[in-house]
């Protein structure tokens, strides 16, 4: 763990002397990219962060939204990429643990987990399969043990992640507004560390996350202990109920160094602490190790002498250790002692505020060439193509994953995983809908439009349940930011997200930046991941059984936008082409119309078109309902295109709606009134998925056969190779 030479100079000039070794460690941890956001912070400010529902107070590690009637939800997103790439089980599990503590630190109970998983090509690559399987088990073991349902996520495979892993986890919390922790502290207050013991495990983790994998630090392996985390959650919430917490902070990257300096800095206080008071796993740990250890399942509490006894009783009840490690002082110094001896005594605004950088950026050379279309080999048997797509790892059902996650515990899950967004019921009678989405294939071809596409897709998923998007989380994952071309892709994505967020008035309520995601063969594709939260005041759309005679309406235009599509990449092995672009006005109109229709209870099912395009989206409705469908390609709204492009284009802003015959008129009225591009393109009947063009049958697939492949192929691939 070390500082860059100029950072060291900067530190020396700020404190006016040579730093001690402990100070160096503390500052190096806090000034690492992971903790300080030094490359990104200046730019992140462009995102809109406020809105009528956003509650922002100092010291929250998660975003807070007012959902009415005295209730709030909190949300946060994190990744654990580097640790998961070397120890997928523990890395993924402790990733869940970390994001849960962010939710907890606002004083809310975690009620849902999401996971976004990305690995190399599991069809060819045994290492990727091993990473995937173990990451899933890690998330399952951790979330299930906590009793927090994992209700959604996504899984994607792409060669750009070979020998690497992206493990993103998001969490949602819920609570009463009055119970939010109002972070404050007074001189003389006590600083308490509670939870797991501090050990040598995970030393240097945040530095590790900011280095590329080659310089891997083996001590950064963390062993998950969900049992302690569960006890920590219950103890914190009980202490909160007794009003014993003045300020609360979770320990994550940078360990005590970050938690103590950031708490002191945000509250404008000083903290004096003694490393001898910290409960440790092993004896003989050096103060530096104690300060930067990233041992899991720990929380920092500021309380006072009067409240301490009750706090200790609660910890005792749950058999978790809590140590008074220090107290609040006036001034702004972080004073670290071991017994009587001082090891660090440094101003917290120096520690907590790294020098922010203005990194150079330059448009990558590859981008112009890659958007050119290529002449593809014509396909004679599109039924076979669709079957291959349906069984492909990126499109096949993810049931093998989410059935390992307890997604029912907490008895809130109204719409379960496996559809678009999942929906939770809230205590005030409203419903919360959420989904995370990424699309590195599109982001690689066009970083700006790709990022916007992820945002719109997450919105679409939430809209399909009848929810209005009220907040967004972004997780920006890129390679080495010191490379101007990579930094350019970061900025482009960020600008795209900002434009979309502003146009739709969806505030960004939190996020995370993860840089230096480099695999042995180069940087990952730009991988922004967007989480969208939606609120439903009255009734969600719970998908109803599709019956013989129901109609299929398609909303939104299909365009010649197959760049980054599964059709180009999986079937034709072609990376490039025209990336789908979101037309903001059209997107808004379509969202609004779908929400109108759902509110009027005119839809039985609503599903968005994404990966695999219309062909896959329509097949998914057939397969989940075990019913056939007759579709007419000539009716598909949009540009004039060849059949394969109509089937597999991944244009945004498109929805498929299943409608009972008797409601067709009313539906059309609404759509016409809103001037939306739409058409009735099919009718459900029989047991075949059939796409016709005029009199020609272009695709003819048995629903049964397709469904079997869709449901089982991912699990088969993982378990039996």
């Amino acid at each position, binding site marked *: 763990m070390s500082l860059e030479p100029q950072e060291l100079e900067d530190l020396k000039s700020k404190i006016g002397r040579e730093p001690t070794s402990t100070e160096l460690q503390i500052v190096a941890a806090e000034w690492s990219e992971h903790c300080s956001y030094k490359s990104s912070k200046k730019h992140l400010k462009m995102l809109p962060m406020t809105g009528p529902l956003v509650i922002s107070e100092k010291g929250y590690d998660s975003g807070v939204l007012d959902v009415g009637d005295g209730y709030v939800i909190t949300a946060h997103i994190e990744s654990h990429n580097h640790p998961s790439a070397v120890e997928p089980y523990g890395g993924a599990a402790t990733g869940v643990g970390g994001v849960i503590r962010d939710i907890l630190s606002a004083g809310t109970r975690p009620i849902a987990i999401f996971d976004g998983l990305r690995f190399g090509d599991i069809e060819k690559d045994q290492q990727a399969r091993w990473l995937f399987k173990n990451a899933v088990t890690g998330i399952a073991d951790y979330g*299930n043990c*906590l009793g927090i349902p994992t209700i959604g996520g996504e899984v994607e495979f792409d060669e750009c992640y070979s020998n690497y892993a992206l493990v993103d986890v998001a969490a949602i919390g819920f609570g009463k507004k009055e119970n939010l922790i109002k972070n404050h502290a007074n001189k003389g207050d006590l600083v308490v560390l509670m939870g797991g013991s501090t050990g040598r495990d995970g030393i240097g983790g945040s530095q590790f996350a900011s280095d590329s994998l080659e310089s891997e630090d083996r001590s950064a392996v963390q062993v998950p202990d969900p*049992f302690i985390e*569960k*006890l920590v959650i219950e103890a914190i919430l009980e202490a909160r109920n007794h009003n014993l917490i003045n300020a609360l902070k979770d320990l994550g990257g940078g360990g005590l160094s970050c938690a103590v300096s950031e708490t002191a800095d945000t509250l404008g206080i000083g903290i004096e602490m003694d490393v001898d008071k910290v409960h440790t796993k092993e004896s003989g740990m050096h103060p530096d190790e104690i300060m930067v250890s990233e041992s899991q399942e720990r929380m920092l509490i500021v309380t006072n002498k009067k409240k301490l006894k009750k706090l200790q009783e609660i910890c005792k009840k749950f058999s978790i250790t809590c140590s008074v490690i220090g107290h609040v002082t006036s001034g702004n110094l972080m004073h670290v002692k071991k017994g009587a001896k001082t090891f660090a005594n440094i101003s917290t605004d120096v520690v907590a505020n790294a020098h922010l950088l203005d990194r150079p950026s330059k448009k990558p050379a590859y981008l112009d060439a890659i958007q050119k279309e290529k002449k593809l080999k014509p396909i004679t048997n599109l039924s076979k193509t669709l079957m291959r797509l349906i069984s492909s790892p990126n499109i096949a059902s993810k049931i093998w994953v989410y*059935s390992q*996650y*307890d997604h029912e515990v907490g008895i809130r899950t109204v719409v379960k995983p496996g559809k678009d967004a999942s929906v939770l019921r809230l205590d005030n009678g409203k419903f919360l809908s959420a989904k995370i989405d990424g699309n590195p294939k599109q982001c690689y071809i066009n970083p700006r439009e790709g990022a916007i596409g992820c945002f719109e897709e997450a919105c679409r998923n939430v809209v399909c349940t009848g929810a209005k998007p009220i907040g967004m989380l972004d997780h920006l994952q890129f390679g080495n930011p010191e490379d101007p071309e990579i930094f350019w892709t970061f900025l482009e994505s960020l600008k795209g997200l900002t434009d979309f967020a502003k146009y739709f008035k969806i505030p960004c309520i939190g996020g995370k930046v993860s840089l230096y995601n480099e695999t042995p063969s180069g940087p990952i594709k730009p991988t922004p991941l967007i989480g969208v939260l939606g609120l439903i005041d009255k009734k969600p759309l719970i998908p109803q059984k599709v019956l013989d005679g129901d109609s299929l309406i398609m909303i939104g235009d299909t365009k010649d936008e197959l760049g980054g599509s599964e059709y180009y990449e999986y079937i034709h092995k072609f990376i490039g082409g025209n990336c789908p672009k979101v037309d903001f006005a059209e997107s808004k109109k379509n969202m609004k119309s779908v929400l109108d229709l759902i509110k009027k209870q005119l839809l039985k099912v609503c599903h968005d078109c994404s990966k695999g395009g219309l062909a896959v989206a329509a097949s998914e409705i057939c397969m989940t309902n075990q019913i056939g469908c007759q579709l007419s390609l000539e009716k598909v709204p949009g540009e004039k295109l060849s059949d394969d492009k109509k089937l597999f284009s991944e244009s945004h802003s498109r929805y498929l709606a299943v409608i009972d015959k008797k409601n067709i008129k009313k539906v059309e009225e609404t759509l016409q009134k809103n001037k939306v591009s739409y058409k009735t393109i099919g009718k459900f009947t029989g047991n075949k998925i059939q796409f016709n063009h005029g009199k020609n049958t272009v695709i003819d697939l048995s629903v049964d056969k397709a469904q079997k492949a869709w449901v089982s192929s991912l699990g088969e691939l993982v378990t039996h190779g």
Partner: protein
Amino acid sequence: MKVGVVVFPGSNCDRDMFHVLTDVFKLDAQYFWHEKGLPKNIDAVILPGGFSYGDRLRAGVIAAHSPVIADVQKMAKKGIPILGVCNGFQILVESGLLPGVLLKNTSLNFMCEWTNLIVENNKTPFTSQFKLYQKIPIPIANGEGRYYVDDDSLKQLKKNNQIVFRYENVVNGSTDRIAGVCNEDGNVVGMMPHPERAVESEINPIDNKPSSLIFESLLSSMGVTH
């Protein structure tokens, strides 16, 4: 009428169960922490699901040594209705209150899915309102849910009518598709699926009435008319 919900370190379906008892069935429910005893005036005891002690060593085995279990045992002898759900079932088995053992699912994975149960014994305090062989759509969520007994014990179970629930289909490799059993007297029942997740129509995509009968049965056994 008081129902005790026992909470162990790591229980995580306690609050769900409490909600169902109090908000849905208007029962007077109360939490009891595993370190304390149970008061005499309790009319029924429920051991909820979760991961007591993180499922370490074996699901349920550490919790089975909790102080509260001695009282649960006494109440069982007195004929008071006791229900263990999921981890609660595992605890009852590990403390010897119910026969058999719960092993890792044959898939080796945690399984969370909806399945159908068949009521095989409608003489227990938790099944009296069912028709025999009635079907219950209900979710399971467990990693160690494969019920196992050897052939002789299975004969005993059948002879004493101790098999309370079977899965309609083979779900996880359980002996004879057993999903829930009772003690010889019939007042202690354990089941792997989660009835508390299935009694409200809002979260039950199939039919919430059958699962509700588990709680209706309890009410009727305690002499409460609903």
